[in-house]
Every structure is written in structure tokens, then in C-alpha cells.
């Protein structure tokens, strides 16, 4: 996670896509900003309906078990048989996830260790103490589970992971890869298979070819 600069993606332009929530009743998109999100979460103890785990119609040629990540809309789809998908709300790393392409789930971990990248250690004093790795647990930024995305046999250093900051689902957050509520990442982890195809459609991604 957090490694866009490290792998040389160059200037990440135009990644500040504003989060909107689709209102199916009015078929309009409603702005959703960080302040409102925190307030909403404080009131309701959960994210808005759109970002809650749900089965939705989703016609695709992709095989059941495939993950499709739509960063622009902050949805992750797990393709199911019969023209359906399980849709999860996601938070997207504004700095760290600006590409489109096809990868796969190379490995997974429960309550994973988080190791801040060197750039973060250099700029963030709070990260220094975890330079050699922060043990898994409720406060760990990777949350309850992590899916490690590989291209071929190589770790892309991108992850789909849980987060203790549930209010951030549906937002372009300041850091991180693809983050999900811990309940959701546990659910996804229980369903996904090693080797599962992951298609990433990211906002601005399109500006990049491959990983």
C-alpha cells in the first residue's frame, strides 16, 4: 500500500474525484464528503446504504469469483452466478492507487502485519516505531484481513484490506490501497480464492497502462 511514488507512477493527476452516492430513487448522484461521512457515521454507526454489502444485478462475461474494483464509484464487485454480484463499499487510497489493469489474488492474510513504506517512515514520526512492522490487531491499518494483489508471480504491493476507520468507506481517503469495513473484508476473504482474477477500474486509472 501507499507506494505509488515508489513504483514510479509519476504525477498522480486528477485523482481527487469527488465521491458521490447514487440515489436509486431519484437516479441522481449525491455528493458525499469526508465531513459529512464522519457525521453520518457518528449518527448511524454504519455507512450509507449504497456502501453496505449487498447483492446487486451485474451482468458480465467475467467468471464468478472475479473481483471488479470501480474506484470511481467506490464499489468492489465479487461476481456471482446468474448475473449478480456482491457489491461492497470501499475507500480508495487517493495517493496510492491510480492504475487500471488485471491482477490476481496472490495470497491472503488474517490480521496482517502492516509495514509502513520507507517514504511514510521518513515523513511521519508516528510511523517510525512501526518501521519493522506493526503486529496485526484492531488498530492495525490493514484491518482484519488483507488480499495481496499479484501480477504474475510478483507482488504489486497493492492490497485490498480492512480498516478500523469504517467511516472512510465511500471516500477517497488520504492513504491506503482499497479499504473495506472489517466485516466486509472478512466476508470477502471467506469467499475469494487464491488466484482469483481482479480487474481494477480506477478513477484516473485510465491514465495509466497496466500496473
Amino acid at each position, binding site marked *: 500500500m501507499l507506494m505509488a511514488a515508489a513504483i514510479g507512477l509519476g504525477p498522480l493527476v486528477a485523482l481527487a474525484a469527488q465521491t458521490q452516492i447514487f440515489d436509486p430513487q431519484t437516479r441522481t448522484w449525491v455528493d458525499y464528503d469526508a465531513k459529512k461521512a464522519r457525521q453520518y457515521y457518528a449518527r448511524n454507526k454504519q455507512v450509507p446504504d449504497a456502501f453496505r454489502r449487498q447483492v446487486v*444485478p451485474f451482468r458480465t462475461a467475467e467468471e464468478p469469483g472475479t473481483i471488479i474494483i470501480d474506484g470511481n*464509484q467506490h464499489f468492489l464487485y465479487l461476481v456471482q452466478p446468474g448475473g449478480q*454480484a456482491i457489491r461492497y463499499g470501499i475507500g480508495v487510497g487517493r495517493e496510492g492507487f491510480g492504475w487500471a489493469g488485471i491482477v490476481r489474488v496472490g495470497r491472503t492474510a488474517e490480521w496482517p502485519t502492516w509495514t509502513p513504506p520507507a517514504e511514510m517512515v521518513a515523513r511521519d514520526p508516528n510511523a517510525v516505531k512501526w518501521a519493522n512492522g506493526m503486529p496485526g490487531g484492531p488498530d492495525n491499518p490493514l484491518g482484519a484481513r488483507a488480499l495481496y494483489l499479484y501480477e504474475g508471480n510478483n507482488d504489486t504491493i497493492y492490497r485490498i484490506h480492512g480498516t478500523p476507520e469504517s467511516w472512510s468507506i465511500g471516500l477517497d481517503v488520504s492513504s491506503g490501497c482499497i479499504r473495506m469495513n472489517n466485516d466486509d473484508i472478512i466476508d470477502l476473504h471467506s469467499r475469494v480464492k487464491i488466484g482469483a482474477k481482479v480487474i481494477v477500474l480506477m478513477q484516473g486509472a485510465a491514465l495509466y497502462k497496466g500496473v
Partner: protein
Amino acid sequence: MKNRLISVAFAAALASVGAVSADAADLVISMPNWPSGQATANILKVAIAKEYKLDAEVRELGTLTAFNGLESGDVDINPEVWRPNLDSLIEKYVNEKHVVEVAARGIDAWQGLCATPDAVAAGIKDISDLSDPAKTAVLDTDGDGRGELWIGAPTWLSTGIERVRANSYGYAKNLTLIEAEEDVGMAAVDAAVATGRPMVFACYAPHHVFELHNIVRLTEPPYDASKWKIAPASDPTWISDSSAPVAWPATSFHIAYATAFAKKHADVASFLEKVDFTPEEITHMTYALQVDRQPPLEFAKQWVDSHASRVDGWAKP
């Protein structure tokens, strides 16, 4: 699209050449790595076995390797040759070397730009609408106010031509042209349709996307040979040297077979000339293999069974 995959398919073919088991079959049918080619290659295999008791080996080969094989005798039938995209190969192997025949009957195909229903509802119906920034703003997926347009996979020849068309029509000025693998482009269509977001993208037919979603082709000025100025792609500056402010030329794809094979099996060659798949059937085939994930050979057996009288008709002298 098939011709677009030459570079990828050729690499795959290089890996498979040499693994020939000469005594295994009566003839060899090359098979492309896309669904309609896989379906038709297997249908020909099953139908030829039914009508002529000949055992055909279906072998996945790239287009260039398949043409070489038709010349060398390693391949007897290529089920899907796209025109005009592969006309240079046809000129070489058919007209100059006289080692390959291309069936006269072709299946109509189409290339251009398509829109999701929500893009149409937003007023994008004709290619000229893409030159209106107020309309294309709805295609924005990255928050910069400019729309995005998927123009194909980086390895496709057609992707460069779509870039030429975007420059020539002028919509390259207010759209970001995206190159990504087809699976990414199609998944983006799936996600756009699922959430009611407008999307415009390069498309071609026959293709299962037309069965998967209610896709609309953008209208545009018809092909005009005098305006279709595509420089040879071998030239590094061919995109900037080209101009094409009109629709793609009429496209079709055909069965090809080795001249030597036709001399040996004139009856099968006559049969191949009569095969009359329709574009709708090709779309159904791609859907069956790509979406329903039917194994190509199993699909072919069922198809031949359910079209027995038609297949018998192809075999009549």
C-alpha cells in the same frame, strides 16, 4: 477484432509451433484465441467428422502462423479471416502465392464506437456529440471534467486507428483516450451499466456485449475511401500521419483453406464454401463460450446436432 490480436496470438503461436503430431488427424484446423473462432473451429471439426468421417485436429494458432501453416501444409483450414484488415495476407498467400483460398461467403462485421443507454440518454448518439465538451463531461470518471473513452487494447491495430479517428473528428481534444486490455474495458461497461453511468467505448460486432447489455452504436458519416488515409503501421509516426474522419470500412470475416487441401478434398472445400453462419449466430456463439462458459467442443457438438439438416445441406454437392 481478430486481426487486432495478431501480435498476441502470434506469440502464442510461436510457442505452440513444433508440437505437431502428424499422424494424429486427417486435417488440422487452426483456432484463434477468441470465442467465435474457437466455436467455429470446433463446429467445423464436428461437422466434417459427421459428413466426411475425417478426424480434424483443432490447434490454437495465431493468424500469421496459421497462414504460414496453410502454405506449408501444417494447417488445412483457418475458420476466421477478417477483411479488410488482413487483406495484405490475402494478397500475399491467395493472389501471389496461390496457396490459400478464401471462401467467397463472408460474415458481416462492424467496428466503431458504442454508448451505454445512459450515455444515449445524456445526448450522445452521434460521433459529432463527442466534440461537445458539455456532453462529454458526463463521461468523466476521474474528476478532471474531461470524459474518458476506451479505444481498445494496447496491442490492437485498431486502437491506433481509433486514435487517428479521434484526432480527425476532433474529439481527442476534450476526451482522454484510454488504452487497456479488453477485459478492463468490458468490465468498465458492466460497471457503468450496473450503476447507470454513461460510457462510450470502442466496440465491434459480432460481440457478446450486444447480448449482455443494451448497447447502442454511435452514428457517424459513412466510410469514404477518399478520406480514409491510414499510413502503414510500421511507420513510427503513422498515427499523426493518418487521417480518418469517417466510419470504418465494411468489414467481414471468412473461412480460408489451403489450396493443396482443396485439391485433395474438393468435397470438403465445397462444403466450406457453403458454410453460412450469420452475425447473430456468431454473437450467440461468443456469448455461449464467453459468458455461459461452455467448452468449445461441447458447444460445437450441440450446435451441429441442433442444426443437422443445415449442416447436411452444406455437404450436398
